[in-house]
């Protein structure tokens, strides 16, 4: 039995238990998936109080709609999709549209192939990335536009596939690849810019 079908079996058992009245099984679902939900909520929502309310709201929706889950994806992917949509709805209520999710701190910088701050030379990149500290990397990821840092986190930190991220965000694979390309490039450029500023 491969890893995916094992997951699926475990998902089915848990969902069946919850639907037959086992509260503890729902607690287990929360424990299993709250890490992924936290990644999405932390990346899309800045306010701590909002995060707390949203996280609860996500799982109440999951609980209320669990009988409608069709096992067409992993349970964690479905829950992450609800988390993502709940966060987007919350942002829309606060009059923030999806386009605002593309605006980061270094908005005015050109991220084209012609623009490589501090590096025409990949040797400099190597030096910068080798001495990169986790704390600085976290800060620079946080500076990315919310949608970009969510995609980077889901792909590189949570190791989800394009297909899974597509289900969660509702983005077509082509768009997703294009956003991820821009996000990675933006992150790399920002790190090199930071290095350049520190050098001056």
């Amino acid at each position, binding site marked *: 039995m491969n890893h995916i079908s094992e997951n699926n079996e475990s998902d089915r058992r848990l969902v069946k238990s*919850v*639907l*037959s*009245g*086992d*509260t*503890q099984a*729902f*607690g287990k679902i*929360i*424990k299993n998936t*709250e*890490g992924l939900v*936290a*990644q999405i909520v*932390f990346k899309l929502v800045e306010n701590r109080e909002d*995060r*707390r309310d949203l*996280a*609860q709201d996500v*799982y*109440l*929706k999951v*609980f*209320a*709609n*669990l*009988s*409608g*889950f069709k096992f067409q994806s992993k349970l964690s992917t479905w829950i992450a*999709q*609800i988390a993502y*949509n*709940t966060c*987007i*709805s919350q942002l829309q209520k606060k009059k923030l549209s999806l386009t605002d999710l593309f605006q980061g701190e270094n908005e005015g910088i050109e991220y084209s*192939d012609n623009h490589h701050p501090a590096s025409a030379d*990949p*040797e400099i*990149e*190597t030096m910068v*990335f*080798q001495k*990169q500290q*986790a704390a600085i*990397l*976290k800060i620079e*990821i946080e500076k990315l536009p919310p949608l970009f840092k969510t995609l*980077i986190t889901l792909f*590189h*930190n949570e*190791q989800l596939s394009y297909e899974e991220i597509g289900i969660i965000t509702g983005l077509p694979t082509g768009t997703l*690849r294009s956003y*991820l*390309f821009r996000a*990675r*490039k933006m*992150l*790399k450029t920002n*790190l090199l810019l930071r290095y350049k500023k520190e050098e001056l």
Partner: protein
Amino acid sequence: MKNGHLTDEMIQEFIWSSENPDLSARAHMLTCEHCKTRAENYQLLFTEIEQLSKPAFNFDLSKLVLNQVMEQNPVASLNADPLLATIPAIEKLNGPRRKNIWPGIIITLMTIGLIGTPVYLFLDSIQDIISEVSTMVTYLIIMTVVLIAAFLVFDEYRKYNHQINSLDI
């Protein structure tokens, strides 16, 4: 390809899109140290991201959610058996299985009464008014009312669909 080297996009594709490898990019990578180093730099950077610590809620989410589920249904919280307790909680969140239809019936009867009584009382006057208005105007009024009603129904349906899609179940 730019200045004899792969573009940033091609390098990213080379690293993260293994299902459709670009053979020319692959061949270039074998001979070009410059592009190879750029690819290795990307890998170095994103391997570090893989190892970053993950955020976590600083409260017991599971406890909070389960308490809230119980709170929404007092019967559940009073029920000593947690297995039985969840069933009414699910019904509470999903709505009761058998909806109480009486409020709907009463509201419908009241609406019919409110509209029907003046129509019944002033039927002759209404008929006189309609007979004075030309057929074209009557059709125009009816069409306008039907169009507005259709628009409102469509709008409600669109809002409903939007809410369902935002759950994406």
